[in-house]
């Protein structure tokens, strides 16, 4: 089980604070694809993704038990 925490507008887009994926493991890239197709999150490719409070790159592997955070970059200022 992988917990995916949502922040800012992603939370509102998906209407929930977290998503649970029943996977043993997956790459960050696979997570992005799944968010895009299964959850219709068109911005998935530009999200920053952290695994257990550390940013990860596309080839990093997420394991069951990990907590993933989706961090949308924003431009307001």
């Amino acid at each position: 089980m992988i917990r995916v925490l949502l922040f800012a507008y992603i939370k509102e887009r998906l209407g929930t604070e977290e998503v649970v994926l029943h996977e043993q493991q997956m790459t960050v890239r696979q997570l992005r694809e799944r968010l895009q197709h299964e959850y219709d999150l068109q911005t998935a490719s530009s999200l920053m993704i952290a695994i257990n409070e550390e940013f990860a790159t596309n080839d990093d592997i997420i394991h069951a038990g990990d907590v993933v955070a989706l961090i949308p970059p924003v431009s307001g200022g």
Partner: protein
Amino acid sequence: MERYSRQILFSPIGEKGQRTLQYKHALIVGAGALGSANADMLTRAGVGRLTIVDRDYVDWTNLQRQTLYSEEDAEKGWPKAVAAKRRLTAVNRDVHVEALVMDVQDESFTSLFEQQIDIMIDGTDNFETRFLLNDLSQKYRIPWIYGACVGSYGLSFTIIPEETPCFRCFVNHLPSYHLTCDNVGIISSVVQMVAAYQTTEALKILVGDVAKIRRSLVMFDVWQNEHRFLRVDKLKNEHCPSCGRDRTYPALHREKAKMSVLCGRDTVQIRHGHPFRITEMMEHMKTSGQQVHGNEYLLMTQLEGHRVVLFADGRMLVHGTKDVTFARSLYQKYFS
């Protein structure tokens, strides 16, 4: 020095740090919400020299969160950089404030880097400018402090050339869709929190307390009671075209667009190529019966139902449209 007594008592700054601050030069890019808050704190802190660059003027909708400005600034339509300088000088006459009304995409912005700049503060409202700052930061080895916010959500990260990942390591392409204050709104407290992080990091860097620089990205949502520090080391990318081994600084070589739609502003900006002679034009328009007002920096009028602003530096804003073709036709008809 007496006026800084409470800051001198703070031991990581002390008398030595306070004297050091007097010889430092901070560049604040953008004088909107984050730029205002940072400029105010750095001026009060006694940083010797501030350069403030902004292309916009004070509007009534800015007053809700842009703390340097008052109603009078919006009424008179002062350029933000000019209004900022006025307030900052009233707050601390010892700080040398330079106000530049210009677009960072202009050549003259890049020429600022011929002088010593000790820190850059991100007060911009779009990714494109941040990629430019990021490349300039790497090229001239100047730390810069990313800050951004929308709604009640904010982010900040301190980018130190040759040490931390750079902005492009985090965000490797212009997001196709992103939120701005103009589509999801913003509250002033998130601005102040992002700016508090930015100013704190700036002070650490300026007084040389490098051990305390925050090496994580901070992310928070003040309304949702979220606050996290996220480690960033893995993101440093040796193939990054901005900070990697083979650098091309792509943002420094982008063709400058003559026309651009301002991020979430329902406004098109056009570059005239030459300065506008504002005072003369204003006089001329008035005598021909046109409703016009402004000051030595800009001229505001109404053309075919659209508010149009001309800046002395040669830019024209057409408000209330995102249609570049229409904006260009207005420009050609009246000013080219």
